[in-house]
């Protein structure tokens, strides 16, 4: 499973994209990213586990707000940072 990292988060991955992660669900994949790149999770999910206002996830080509989305059969995750303010 690979994750495409958007530009606002590239500093966490050493400007590497895509990166490889493990996990059966979207949340597990994000936690896998955080274990590799400390601090990553808190920038996309808040302390209550909610998705940050301007962050969106696609599993394959399907947008999802369900962090328990299964990754079975999917090859990639896209993290999208929506435009926010000028």
């Amino acid at each position, binding site marked *: 499973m690979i994750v495409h990292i958007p530009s*606002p*988060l590239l500093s966490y991955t050493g400007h590497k994209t895509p990166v490889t992660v493990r996990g059966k669900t979207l949340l597990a994949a994000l936690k896998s990213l955080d274990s590799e790149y*400390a*601090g990553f999770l*808190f920038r996309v999910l808040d*302390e*209550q586990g*909610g998705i940050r206002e301007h962050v969106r996830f696609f599993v394959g080509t399907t947008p999802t707000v369900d962090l328990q989305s299964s990754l079975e059969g999917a090859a990639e995750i896209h993290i999208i940072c929506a435009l*926010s*303010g000028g």
Partner: protein
Amino acid sequence: MAASKPSVHASPKPKLKKPLRGPVELYIATRKGAFVLRSDSERKAWNLKGPWKLGQIIQHMVLDPRDKKTLLMAARPGHLGPSLFRSTDKGKTWHEAKRPPAFPKAKAGENGRVVQHTFWLQPGHKSEPGVWYAGTSPPALFKSNDGGDTWKGVKGFNEHPEYDKWCPSGPNTPPDGSTLHSIQIDPADPKHLIFGISATGILESTNGGRTWAHLNNGCEMDFYPGVPPEYGHDPHCFAMHPMDSTRLWQQNHCGIYRMDRSPAQVDTWQRVGRNMPKAVGDIGFPIVLHPRDPDTVWVFPMDGTDVWPRVSPGGKPAAFMTSNGGKTWKRQDKGFPAAQGWFTVKRQCMAQDSREEIGLYLGTTSGEVWASRNGGNSWKCIARHLPHIYSVEVGGVHQ
């Protein structure tokens, strides 16, 4: 649980500390990153460096006056969650805090609070190296014991049984969210804390944050239909004098106030802003104290009439200084535009140094930094074309 009236510390006659010398550094937080302005020893020439964290919204950046090398920066890029960055080499390298300010995870079925941004950073008492406090929006107080690397909420306030009454959430909060700001620590007692919250008021603890009491008696509420209540006030900026913790100052949504505390009196704010020129009024955001003279402060008034333009009244920027505790005020506008100068100076955007002749510094939302080398008697623009300025803090060799 409310705190009892604090024991007012013996108020020693302020001793004149030796004025400091050397270059001054201004730590400037903006909507698009952070900058540093460094002066020569005379404070005549200034050199701009930066940006750090270009594009990130930097609410506040503060140098630790205890070790003179640790910088903390409260940041939030537009897309992502808030965080906090640390430098232990005065900005050469930056590292993200391991555990930035965040609320505890709520129990299942409950709505937990989420930190939107850290608004205020405050180094702790000089006897507690490594201790920092942070104020956030929604209003909450956080503490770090390790120089800002990990943070925990101060339960005595954040989980106070009355919290939801003091700091209601929902549509009636200020436009950018209510913030906890102006965290002040009594130089004579590290457990004596005071801060302000927009739309709540001033709160005080004398036991390190375990219990809290409101400190708003005497504050007017021009907008309120009735007698001002115990809380629900709007302090814009609050300061305790570093040499006399019984002398408090506040620039409020409804005027400029001074409080002199003694065991014999009920703590009461006096609206000394009534002595400002009527055409200017006494509304503004910042208030800056003379580090050695509790009677001398500076404010930077803004237009708080009509729809609250929040710009210099009449388009004529000016600082105002009192040197007698607010009985009289002196206009200080030499060097500023004489007309069509529509400055907005936010609450964290005016600061002072500790030189013999006090240096004053202010940043505007239009990205200009102005400085005075003579206690406000004349002003000079020392940087322009910066992004919207959110805070200006003084550091440097002398601090």
